[in-house]
């Protein structure tokens, strides 16, 4: 679960990491009011969970409350990469001498969290990582010991921070690692972490991603999810523990397992079709979950045919078949289906569906071919 910038900054501030003064605005009037309170130049920042916000016009520097109102009116309601901007973070503009990159994330290969820092923070950090990797310093954090002071100090040394800032850098790093660990984050990124003209650290931007698998330990954080910033299908899918990603094609896919779902999409594409979605029902799905998945697919107006590919292991074909049967009893649809069921309780599943008169396939390849064929035929 990704947090908005304003949510991330609240967490930073709670952990003694300085952030600019500011508040959220939902209307141009609010933006004006906040600018008046801040009494100086402010930055308006669209709160949308997509990259490249600045280039898309989602960040504006303004000098007066009046300007703030005018610019806020332009940004609010705008769409950035198809996401409507509903809220702006209005913050004091901060002058700084230097931009640092600070990141904590999981390195799956090493099985550790990495602290990543660079003296050359800012939007070009990925370019720098590619062309001058020596400017990026990485420290592996022992998951049992946590970040040690000497490691943070070594990072400060490596990026040549002025010595009088080392102590504070160590403290900020420890506070952020503490937040990362206690919130079960998989990413905390501050880019840029600036050194202000008053020689203070300040987080000018911030990203936090939380581990969805650990949200059960953090009921207070679940509320932070911004469902207004995502497709309603995705919200619905999450409610049932499904992994759903909307795509641009017309073949609705319902598959168990992420690998098989990807392979199914790959084959559809190889055969000349285009998937309407990625949908993994996970392992051991109940008939209710399958039914929910199918409802989500059928609710997508772009879907012209449905491909169900189930290879039962922990998932039982009879449960899947029950879910399909129930859904088709509830929703009348002319959308053509191709169903391929194999594996655990396959025979039982096929019996359940035997009256449904849905097209079946014996192999993934055959199923994909039939679905692509359906998708290329004119809608009945």
């Amino acid at each position, binding site marked *: 679960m990704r947090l908005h910038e304003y949510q991330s900054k609240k967490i930073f501030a709670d952990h003694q990491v300085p952030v600019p003064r500011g508040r959220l605005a939902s209307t141009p009037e609010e933006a004006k009011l906040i600018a008046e309170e801040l009494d100086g130049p402010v930055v308006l920042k669209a709160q949308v969970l997509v990259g490249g916000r600045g280039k898309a016009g989602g960040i504006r520097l303004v000098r007066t409350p009046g300007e703030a109102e005018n610019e806020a009116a332009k940004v609010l309601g705008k769409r950035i990469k198809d996401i409507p901007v509903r809220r702006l973070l209005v913050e004091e503009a901060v002058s700084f001498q230097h931009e640092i990159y600070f990141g904590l994330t999981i390195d799956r290969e090493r099985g550790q969290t990495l602290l990543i820092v660079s003296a050359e923070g800012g939007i070009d950090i990925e370019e720098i990582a590619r062309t001058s990797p020596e400017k990026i310093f990485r420290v592996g954090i022992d998951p049992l010991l946590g970040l040690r002071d000497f490691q943070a100090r070594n990072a400060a040394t490596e990026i040549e921070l002025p010595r009088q800032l080392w102590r504070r850098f160590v403290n900020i790093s420890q506070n952020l690692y503490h937040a990362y660990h206690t919130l079960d984050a*998989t990413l905390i990124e501050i880019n840029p972490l600036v050194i202000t003209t008053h020689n203070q650290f300040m987080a000018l931007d911030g990203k936090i991603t939380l581990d969805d698998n650990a949200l059960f330990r953090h009921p207070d954080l679940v509320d932070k999810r911004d469902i207004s910033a995502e497709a309603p299908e995705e919200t619905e899918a999450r409610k049932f523990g499904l992994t759903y990603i909307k795509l641009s094609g017309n073949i609705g896919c319902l598959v168990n397992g992420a690998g098989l779902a990807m392979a199914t999409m790959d084959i559809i594409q190889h055969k000349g079709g285009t998937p309407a979605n990625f949908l993994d029902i996970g392992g051991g799905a109940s008939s209710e979950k399958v039914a929910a998945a199918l409802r989500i697919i059928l609710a997508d107006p772009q879907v012209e045919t449905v491909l169900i590919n189930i*290879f039962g292991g922990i998932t039982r074909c009879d449960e899947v078949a029950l879910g399909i049967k129930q859904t088709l009893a509830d929703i009348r649809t002319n959308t053509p289906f191709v169903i391929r069921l194999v594996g655990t309780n396959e025979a039982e599943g096929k019996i359940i569906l035997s009256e449904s008169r849905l097209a079946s396939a014996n192999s993934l390849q055959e199923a994909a071919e039939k679905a692509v064929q359906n998708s290329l035929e004119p809608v009945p």
Partner: protein
Amino acid sequence: MSILVNQETRLVVQGLTGNEGRFHTTQMLAYGTNIVAGVTPGRGGEWVLNGKVPVFDSVHMAVDVTGANASIIFVPAPFAADAILEAADASINLIVCITEGIPVQEMLQVRRVIDNQNCCLIGPNSPGIIAPPLTKVGIIPGNITQQGSVGVVSRSGTLTYEVLYILKQAGIGTSTCVGIGGDPIIGTHFNEILSHFEDDSTTEVIVLIGEIGGQDEEKASAFIIDSMTKPVIGFIAGQAAPSDKRMGHAGAIIEGGMGTAKSKIEALKNAGVKIARYPEDIPHLIHSLQSH
């Protein structure tokens, strides 16, 4: 012969009395797996599954009484990390964790502990291991594969079944199939399994099933160049997948251009691995190797 599991495997099922544990234990027993015990705290002393399997309160007791040397874990995600540590603490040397959804920071800790112990963890979020015709430790359906000389190793669950099934339909059998698990942090990676297959006298060719994300396929490529004499066939899922919701810049910095289907396929090709475009191509590639 097989790798990791064989007739000497004495399996304890952690989370035996839950729905999944009960269902798949029945399946494993039917296949022939030597299941010596189950563990459900608070239910020690019962005999379940028609009196076939004794239940213990702890893995320690199960090991003491039955000599169990391998464990399979079906316990729910919030308790699964503890279950892995309990098995390792009880000197189990093969732990297969089926559970998905374990918080990643818990798995970082578990892996750090396990790395210093003489113990092999498969998974989590793994479909387990099958060594036809008699032993399976996991949830891979027994009827979709048969005994043979192809070693299969995969990060996926159901995609693995697909491949096994395609192989079987082409008359090709499996020496051992190992699902290493789809989570970011897992116990055993491609390289350890490849190394086992290299040493296994029955295995003649290996099928490696990868997917986008991480660098495990790239590392396997380097290992294949350095240490493998047996031929490897590869399939990578996710070529048509939308680019993942990335982990900020940090993710890009760590991956450094690796992790894409393109990167993985190129690396494997450079290591002499034949790449299958569809899973259905795999039998042809195996036959073409054998006709050489």
